Each structure stands twice: as structure tokens, then as C-alpha cells.
């Protein structure tokens, strides 16, 4: 390997630099911005996050207000997306549901990532039998069909949004553990890790300060992609009747309640379906864009 990037020291002016961190992010953003599709994904995600934050302000109606007289209304001026089987305003429910679905996504992925990272870092850094044991445990998790794991967890703990998050989180652990372990193995081989070890740093310092930040970008990418999966999984669990507790307007639950009216009142399933799909789509292309922007090899 030979130096490719040769920057003339003298040309870099001290004045024009502010915070080095900031420039780092700016460069990243510049690269990311160039990927139009990824940007669209980012905007979709941002859009939903805003919806979630401002749901109470922009919801036209009370999402919980049951009005059995006006149930199953098709979209109209009053109910832009119609009403559901209990006469609740679907738009309002969707808006409130954004919070739940995003929370499910974020919390479960965070949970899965946290444990996955912990396992992956330990396995990758220490290697040997620790690695073997951890990876076998991960294998068990992986071999255990995910939906069954979820079923089991939810049967054990009762169906609630929190348990859905736990369940969905648990089955993203193996993914994270594997990715983190892989990256840890490759980062651990880097010379600067040896250099810092040669300086006498403790394992803890090395893992936290040097390995962790450098495995973060694949983890972030994986997390955005996992977010999409998590939202879909939660919806799948709702379909099996294991999801959020009524009357909470979780999207998967809404979608699944709409399946009874798939033929008679398709709008009930359609709108949550579109919401899920677009959000998942958003996360997916956002994640892809992140990957490209964070991947040094993809600089073009």
C-alpha cells in the first residue's frame, strides 16, 4: 500500500478550519447528499419523524373516538382516509400510530443492537473460547425461527407493545452480533489497535474508544435496515394477534384489523399498508445511501 491521498500540508490554511468534527460531518453530508435517492429516503424518514412529533397538533380527530354509526366510511372530506370498523378516523390514527411504529422500530433495534454489539465486541475482541461460546449462543438464536421466538416471548410476557419490542429486538441480536464481530475482527487487526495496545491501554479503553467507534458505521447502516424489518415484523406480529394492545393505533394492528375488510372496505388496510411500505422504503433507501456514503471504497 502506498499513500494515495497526498495533501500538501502547507496548503491547508489554519484559519478556514473550525471544528474538525463539524467538517467531518459536512464532508459526509456532502457525499450523502449527492445520492439523490438516499436523500429522498432521508426525507421520508424525517417526514415521518415530524409527523410523529406533531401528531397531536395535526390530527384532525381524536384517534380513539369510537363512532359506530359512522364505521367503515370511505374517504371523504371529513375523513380523508375514511373511518375504520369502529368509526375512528383513520388519518388521525395513522398519525398517532407513527409514534408507535417508530418507537417500536427504534426501541427494538436499539435493544437488539445494544446486546448484539456487546456480544459481537466481546466475541470479536477476545476470540478463542469466548468467541466460540458467544457465537454458538448467537447460532441458537439464529436457528430459532424468529417468529416463533416472538410468539414464545409474547405468550410468556403477554402481548403488549413493549414485549413486541423485546421480541423484535431479540431476533435482531444475531444480525448485529455477527456484523459487529466481523468488523471487530477486522478492526482488531489494524495496526493502530496494536499501537495503542503497545502503549499499554487497557482492553476496556481499546474496545470503547478505538474499536467501537470504528465498527459503528456498519452498525448504523444495519440499524436503519433493521428498523425497516422491525416495523414489518411488528406488523406481522399484529397480524397474528400478538401486537400492540387495543385501541392503540399501531400500524401493524391497523393493517391487520383491516384485513377483514380487504374486500368490502379496502381503504382500512390500504392506508396503513401504504404508511408501512413508505416508511420501510424510506429507511431502506436511507440505509443504502448511508452505506454508500460511509463506505470509503465507494467514493466516486
Amino acid at each position, binding site marked *: 500500500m502506498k*499513500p494515495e491521498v*497526498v495533501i*500538501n*500540508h502547507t496548503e491547508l490554511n489554519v484559519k478556514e478550519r473550525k471544528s474538525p468534527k463539524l467538517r467531518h460531518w459536512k464532508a459526509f453530508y456532502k457525499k450523502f447528499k*449527492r445520492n439523490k435517492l438516499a436523500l429522498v429516503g432521508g426525507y421520508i424518514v424525517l417526514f415521518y419523524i415530524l409527523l410523529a412529533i406533531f401528531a397531536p397538533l395535526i390530527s384532525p380527530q381524536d384517534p380513539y373516538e369510537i363512532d359506530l354509526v359512522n364505521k367503515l366510511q370511505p374517504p371523504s372530506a371529513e375523513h380523508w382516509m375514511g373511518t375504520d370498523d369502529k368509526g375512528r378516523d383513520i388519518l388521525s390514527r395513522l398519525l398517532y400510530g407513527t409514534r408507535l411504529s417508530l418507537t417500536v422500530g427504534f426501541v427494538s433495534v436499539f435493544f437488539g443492537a445494544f446486546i448484539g454489539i456487546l456480544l459481537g465486541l466481546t466475541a470479536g475482541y477476545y476470540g478463542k473460547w469466548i468467541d466460540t461460546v458467544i457465537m454458538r449462543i448467537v447460532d441458537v438464536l439464529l436457528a430459532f425461527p424468529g417468529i416463533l421466538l416472538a410468539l414464545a416471548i409474547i405468550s410468556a410476557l403477554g402481548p403488549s407493545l413493549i414485549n413486541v419490542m423485546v421480541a423484535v429486538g431479540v431476533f435482531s441480536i444475531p444480525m448485529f452480533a455477527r456484523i459487529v464481530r466481523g468488523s471487530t475482527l477486522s478492526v482488531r487487526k489494524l495496526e493502530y489497535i496494536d499501537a495503542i495496545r503497545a502503549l499499554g491501554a487497557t482492553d476496556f479503553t481499546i474496545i470503547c474508544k478505538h474499536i467501537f467507534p470504528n465498527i459503528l458505521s456498519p452498525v448504523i447502516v444495519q440499524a436503519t435496515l433493521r428498523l425497516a424489518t422491525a416495523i414489518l415484523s411488528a406488523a406481522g406480529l399484529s397480524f397474528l394477534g400478538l401486537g400492540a394492545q387495543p385501541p392503540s393505533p399501531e400500524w401493524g394492528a391497523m393493517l391487520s384489523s383491516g384485513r377483514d375488510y380487504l374486500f368490502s372496505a379496502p381503504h382500512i388496510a390500504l392506508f396503513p399498508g401504504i404508511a408501512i411500505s413508505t416508511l420501510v422504503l424510506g429507511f431502506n433507501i436511507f440505509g443504502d445511501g448511508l452505506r454508500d456514503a460511509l463506505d470509503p471504497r465507494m467514493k*466516486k
Partner: protein
Amino acid sequence: MKQDADKILEVKNLQTHFFTDEGTSKAVNGISFSLNKGETLGIVGESGSGKSITSLSLLRLIPSPPGKIAGGSILFKGEDLLTKSEKQMRSIRGNEISMIFQEPMTSLNPVYSAGEQIAEAIRLHQKLGKKEAWDKAVDMLRLVGIPSPEKRAKQEPHELSGGMRQRVMIAMALACHPEVLIADEPTTALDVTIQAQILELIKTLQKDFGTAVILITHDLGVVYETCDRVAVMYAGKIVEYTLAKEIFTNPKHPYTIGLLNSLPRLDMDQEELTTIPGTVPSPYSMPKGCSFAPRCAHAKSICEQAVPDLQAIGPSTEVSCWMFTPQWEKAYDTQEKVGI
């Protein structure tokens, strides 16, 4: 340089640019040289000086986008390769002009056996059957000194050592008896003892087939031992173009001199090496004048204002430096030099 009837390849003012987000990188910025039948031309220069891009340009293999041959001409046996169709180029590549790449480890396809990869080129250009091509491939392996070539031909690259892989590359390149062989740092990744074997091999084969060779390297020692003529590149340009022996006894360009002085010598003890201060300029922000001027101890203001042309200053020597021009005497000294 004097006109030569044996001239097989002539490059004139070749320019290859990369259009990237950071800007335009003039990786090869107007270079001219020529190659005679059977001779070996060395191209030396530091990393990033444009050696590989030059060689890839010759075969029109520049990754595009972002790269593009922006100008000049490449006359191969009198015809300009830049005007040829892609199909015509394909019949030239691997057949009349072949190439050995810098990285023997990654330049072979990991999923096909060595023999297959050699035979592929033979079948393509010599229209031989599967069997004949294979036999020929085995012959080629034997020729490049691989023991028990029948067995080795069936092995895949990962089963071969670095030296052997490079020999497979050479066999592949020479399989169709090309008239020009471009070897891009064929030994950089190898150990000295293996390097010696490979260079020896190229020399022998060159003699046997009468192939003209362009040998790209950053090792001046290799040039000295293998080449007839040499072009020294700096920042996308040829700064000195001369006979190989000449460059060691009588270097002209300040950069060439600096380079030679930077080398730790095996024949004498030095307490301190002479260095060239500073670093190579970024390809995205080349100085206006001579690209070596910021590091040149002799630079005058003229050096920073205009790019010197490559000019003949002797029967077989061309240099691109204001020092060897009539303007030099009139030019003013520049301000103090920058260090690192």
C-alpha cells in the same frame, strides 16, 4: 529523440483526466514517448505520478467514468489506437499489446484455474480448440519456469505463491507473442530474490520473442538493470527521458537528481540522506508552473509561472526544466522555499 524506423509505439501528448467530485485530476498530463521493437523502456516515478494510468491508457482500459483520455494520440504501428473501435481494440489487447499488472494477488480471477485463464486468451486470439489452447497454456507455464506445469495449470490462483502467480500473469501476457508488453510494477509485491527471478525471466523471454517492453517501476535499481531507456515521471508529466545508463551517471532534472540522492546507497555509508523537501502536489491542485517547482531548490520565478516543455538537450536526452532553456539565465530567483 531521433526518428527510428523500428518504432512500434509512439505516444504523443497523451492526456488522461479523472473527473471526480473533488475536481479534475490530470493524472496523465501530456506525455510523449516512443518505443522501438525489442527495446525496453522504463517508466519511473513516485506513487501517484501517473505511471499506471499511462499504461492503462495505452490499452484504453481507463475506468470510465470517471477517467477519460482527453487528448493526444497513441500510434501503434502507425495507427492511432484512440480512433479504433472497441472491437478492433479487443483484437489488439492481449494479442498485439499485453499487460502485466501491479498486483499478482488480485489480478487473477480467483475462481478459474491458472491454465484456464491463460488458455482463454489463446483461444480467443489464435482461434485454437480447447485442447490445443490448454496444451499451449501448459507450454507457456513451462516456459516461465513453473515446475510441473501440467499440475499447476489445473490449480487455482489461491493455491499458488505470489511469485508463481506473477509468472502465470507473464505467461498469460506472452501467450500470444505480443509485440508490446506493458509490465506495471511486475515485481513490487514480491521479495527481492523472487524479483530477480522474474526480471531475469522477462529479459529472457523478451530476447526470445523480440517483444518491446514498457517496464513501469519506482525502483531505479530495476531500471538500471533491465531497461534501455527510461522516462522519469512527476505529477503526470515526463520530466526526463533518456538512456537508462545515462540517468545514473548524468541526471539532469532536479527531481531525478533528488530521487537518486534519496536512495540509501549500498556502496557507501552516509550519515544523512539527501532529501527532497515537501511532498508531491495534489493532483487536484497542481501548481501553475512546473509541478516540481515548490520542492525544487533551484526554482526561479519563471518555474512558478509557466510549465516547461520536454526538450531535447542531447542526442538521446530530453528534459522538462527551465534550467536547460535559454530563459533560465534571465529569470529571477524566487522567494524562500517551503519546507514541511
